[in-house]
């Protein structure tokens, strides 16, 4: 742990391999017992997923414990786990998580609010959108981080810059999916609303939004996923401590603190899964599709 950002870190206790394996085993065992006691509470699928993830962790710990790999190149999961607990205990981790989640949520909501109305407008009037299409396609393939230096010049170091990069990454999947969703609207559906006395706004609420809803949710899921992917680059522009998980990974990388790098990676994986699960919940909101 040479050159760690926190010299005190080494004072933190590191879990021994057997106790780590025991913890992982119990994390798998407790839900399994729960399932046996109260059937139906936990699905087989999630239990299987948990077992596979736990199995890989145990395998990794054993490989490290046997000294098969250099611990700097691949720190044992027990150490990573202890590191996470330690960073939390000294109050270092919380501001990173809060700051990252704040930026992502901010940029994501901004992307939703801009991409969905623009997508609907674009498919409402293809006459005006089709000349813009090549430009949109060109803009779409540019990796969001490529804008980084310009973004710093425009928005300065800190939150705004990072939010801009993440927004850019989220925007296009949501926009293009909205366009695809609205194109599924049939003329007869629009005319149905009109023939029953609805106006253009009713068409939007009664037909266009329900038809494109699933596409928009899918776009949002892809967008947020890409948002997480660009996080590390986006947070390169962060300046102060407490500047996010992406910043934490970057900073530890410079100091060769691979344990903290892996901690950040695992935390991003966990939070990414949580946000995706939340978005997936929205899929079931509009019923009746086969």
């Amino acid at each position, binding site marked *: 742990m040479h050159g760690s950002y926190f010299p005190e870190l080494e004072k933190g206790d590191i879990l021994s391999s057997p106790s780590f394996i025991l913890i992982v085993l119990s994390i798998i065992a407790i839900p399994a017992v729960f399932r046996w006691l109260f059937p139906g509470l936990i699905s087989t699928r999630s239990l299987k997923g948990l077992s596979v993830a736990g199995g890989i962790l145990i395998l990794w710990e054993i490989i490290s414990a046997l000294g098969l790999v250099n611990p700097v190149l691949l720190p044992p999961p027990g150490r990573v786990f202890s590191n996470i607990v330690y960073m939390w205990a000294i109050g270092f981790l919380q501001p990173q998580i809060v700051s990252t989640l704040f930026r992502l949520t901010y940029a994501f909501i901004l992307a939703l609010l801009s991409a969905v109305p623009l997508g609907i407008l674009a498919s409402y009037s293809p006459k005006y959108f089709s000349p813009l299409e090549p430009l949109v396609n060109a803009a779409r393939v540019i990796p969001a981080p490529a804008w980084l230096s310009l973004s710093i010049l425009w928005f300065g170091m800190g939150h705004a810059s990072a939010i801009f990069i993440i927004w850019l990454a989220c925007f296009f999947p949501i926009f293009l999916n909205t366009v695809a969703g609205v194109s599924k609207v049939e003329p*007869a*559906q629009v*005319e149905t609303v009109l*023939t*029953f006395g609805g106006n253009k706004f009713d068409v939007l609420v009664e037909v266009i939004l329900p038809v494109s809803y699933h596409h928009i949710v899918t776009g949002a899921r892809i967008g947020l996923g890409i948002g997480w992917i660009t996080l590390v680059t986006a947070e390169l522009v962060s300046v102060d401590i407490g500047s996010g998980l992406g910043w934490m990974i970057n900073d530890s990388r410079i100091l060769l603190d691979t344990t903290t790098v892996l901690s950040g990676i695992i935390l991003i994986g966990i939070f990414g899964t949580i946000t995706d699960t939340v978005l997936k919940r929205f899929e079931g909101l509009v019923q009746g599709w*086969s």
Partner: protein
Amino acid sequence: MKSSIEKDVRQFKTSQNGRHVIEIENVSKSFFAYTNHGETVITEKKRLFSRKKPCELVALKDVTLNIDHGEFIAFLGPSGCGKSTMLRILAGFESPSEGAVRCKGACISGPHPQRAMVFQSERAVFPWLTVEGNISLGPRLQGMDVEERKEKVAKTIELIQLDGFEKAYPKTLSGGMLQRVAVGRAVVSQPEVLLMDEPFGALDAQTRNSLQDHIVRIWQSIEQTIVFVTHDIEEAAYLANRVVVFTRRPGQIRDIITIGLPHPRARTSAEFIEYRNRLAALIRH
């Protein structure tokens, strides 16, 4: 035949007033087809700044027709003869190039709940709403209050005989049931005229026959006018009071046949077959 007597009385009344529900006066409709790099675009109006000479398609030519209250009119003709265009003009989705269309004396300028349309497309019954939700769509858009809406929706579901399917989503219903929902959705807010654009065109013969009986029953129990577009000769003869036969493009009225048979009609009776043959002869020319 109590209902047919009532119908006669109704027709007598309206003809006394001298007012028709729908008046179609010398209506013509043309479209313009522009071909550009092998791609044909059909527009309603001539393009102002186009050097290309468009190919003019005359869909309807000089159609004049009056429809009385409570009538069941069928537009019959070969496909592409403009009968659907005529219906869309009545619905207000399209406007005639020449001539005038009036509903209860007022010019038709756009869609109105007074003239509800039943579409052929199964997707026109919204898959994200239940049967109940689909039927209450019209009343909801027209701002009917909740109590009245509930009552009317329940009555309509009874009328289309889909009791027990109130909470079902369209994907769980058969094609015939879907079309009944489409009809129910149109009749629920008691429009003056019901416009049906080949509503049973995509169904199998069995289902189609049973839906034809449904539609006759529904027509007899409500006091509404129905304009029904079809290319099926038997369907027109089975359903309508008057069958308006259209010619091939440009669509003109070839003849109007009054079917003087009371409902329910027997498809195998000699009179019915005679009417059918007459219509077939008109179409074939």
